[in-house]
C-alpha cells in the first residue's frame, strides 16, 4: 500500500493520463486533475477545455509573461496552444452539456456504487458551489473520478452517498492510489490494483461492495 502523499498523487494522475486517447477533448478539474496534463502519453494529441471559454489550454506561463486576459477555470494564469479557440460561456456549455466532451476528470467527496457523485458541498461547512461540475458530469461521454481512496481514514467510495449529490448515475470510472474501478451495471468492478497493494487493503478502505475482475491487473504507473 502506497503511503507517500506525493507518490499517491503521481500514481493517480499517471494512470488517469493513460485514459486519454488521441483526438480527445478533455476537461481537467481544478486541483489534482490539472496535473494529468503533465503525463499525457507520447503521440497522443488531446485538446483541453476550460469552462470559462476556450479549448486548447497550454502550459502555465513563465513568471512575468502572464497574459491578464487568459486564465483557466480556477482563475490562474494560463496560455493557449496553436489551434486554440476562445468563445463565450454559452458555447462553452454547449460543448460540455451537449455531449461534445470526450472525458471529464474531477475529484469527489464521495462516490457510490450506483455511480452517484457528491463533490460540491458539505452542508453547514463548506459550500463552494457546483460551478460547472454538474454540467460536466451530465454532459461528458466519460466521467473519471480521480481522488485519494479515503479521506483521513474515512471511506469515500460508499454503498450510497450521504452528502448532497452532484449528479445521479454518471460516474464511469474511479482512479485512486489503490486501484482502478469501473462502474458497471452489476456494481463496482476493480480492474487494476496499484503496485504493492492487495485486494484486502482495497476492500478494507472501501465501504461499497466491490467485484474484483478475474483478470485483475497491476496499474502501470
Amino acid at each position, binding site marked *: 500500500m502506497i503511503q507517500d502523499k506525493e507518490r499517491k498523487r503521481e500514481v493517480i494522475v499517471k494512470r488517469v493520463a493513460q485514459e486519454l486517447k488521441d483526438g480527445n477533448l478533455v476537461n481537467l478539474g481544478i486541483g489534482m486533475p490539472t496535473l494529468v496534463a503533465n503525463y499525457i502519453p507520447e503521440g497522443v494529441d488531446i485538446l483541453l477545455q476550460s469552462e470559462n471559454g476556450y479549448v486548447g489550454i497550454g502550459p502555465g506561463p513563465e513568471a512575468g509573461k502572464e497574459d491578464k486576459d487568459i486564465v483557466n477555470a480556477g482563475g490562474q494564469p494560463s496560455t493557449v496552444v496553436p489551434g486554440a479557440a476562445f468563445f463565450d460561456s454559452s458555447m462553452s456549455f454547449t460543448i460540455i452539456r*451537449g455531449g461534445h466532451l470526450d472525458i471529464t476528470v474531477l475529484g469527489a467527496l464521495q462516490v457510490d456504487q450506483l455511480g452517484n457523485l457528491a463533490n460540491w458541498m458539505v452542508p453547514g461547512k463548506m459550500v463552494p458551489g457546483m460551478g460547472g461540475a454538474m454540467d460536466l458530469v451530465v454532459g461528458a461521454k466519460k466521467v473519471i473520478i480521480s481522488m485519494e481512496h479515503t479521506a483521513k481514514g474515512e471511506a469515500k467510495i460508499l454503498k450510497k452517498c450521504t452528502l448532497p449529490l452532484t449528479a445521479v448515475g454518471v460516474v464511469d470510472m474511479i482512479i485512486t492510489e489503490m486501484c482502478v474501478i469501473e462502474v458497471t451495471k452489476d456494481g463496482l468492478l476493480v480492474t487494476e490494483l496499484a503496485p504493492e497493494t492487495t485486494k484486502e487493503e482495497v476492500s478494507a478502505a472501501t465501504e461499497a461492495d466491490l467485484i474484483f475482475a478475474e483478470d485483475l491487473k497491476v496499474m502501470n504507473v
Partner: protein
Amino acid sequence: MKKIKTIDEAMEYIKDGMTIAFGGFMGVGTPEKLVDAILAKGVKDLTIICNDTAFPHNGVGKLVVNKRVKKCIVSHVGTNPETGRQMNAGEMEVELVPQGTLIERIRSAGAGLGGVLTPTGIGTVVEEGKQKLNIQGKDYLLELPLKADVAMLQGSIVDKKGNVYYSKATRNFNPIIATAADLVIVQAEKLVEAGEIDPSDVMTPSVFVNIIVDGRE
C-alpha cells in the same frame, strides 16, 4: 487526427435516406461543392435541414430540383418554385418551421437541452400537436430538438485542426448546425495552418469538425 480528406473520401460517409443539415441562407454560406458531390454520387431520399430551399440554381435548391429530397425542414420555400410544385404534388414533404424556432431547435440539440420554449407560433397552425406551457403567465410552445446525421458547412477560412471562420453574412446557420450532427464536414474556401486564425476569431471551434474538404480542389 488527420481531418483533411478529398471530396470523394468525404462522400463515402453519405448514404441514401440520411438527414443532412446545410449552412446557408438563400444559398449564401452553403457548401456548393459538397452539394454538387451529392448530386454526382446519386444520393437520394434525403431529409434536409436548412433555412430555406434557396433558388433552383444554387445551394440546396439544386438537390430539390434534382429530386434527391424526400423531406425538407425549412422556414421558407418561396424563392424556389420547384419546392412548392413538389410539395403541392405530394412528391416531397415540407415541414415549415419559423426561422427563429428552427435555429433554436438545432441549437438545443447541439447544447444537450430538452427543447425550446418559444412564444412564436402560439395561436397558429404551428402549435398543432405540440405541448403548450404557461410560464409566469405567458404561453409558450415546446419545440423539440432537431439533430442531423451530417452537417455540411461552408467555411471561409479553415485551419488544419478544423477551426472555422465565416466571412460576413455567410455565417448564418453554419456555426449552429456544426453543433448538432453526428458527422460534421466543412468545405474550406481557404485552408490555413493551425494557429493562423486568431483564437478569438474562431467561430466554430475545431472540436465540432470531423472532416475538412479543400473547396479549391
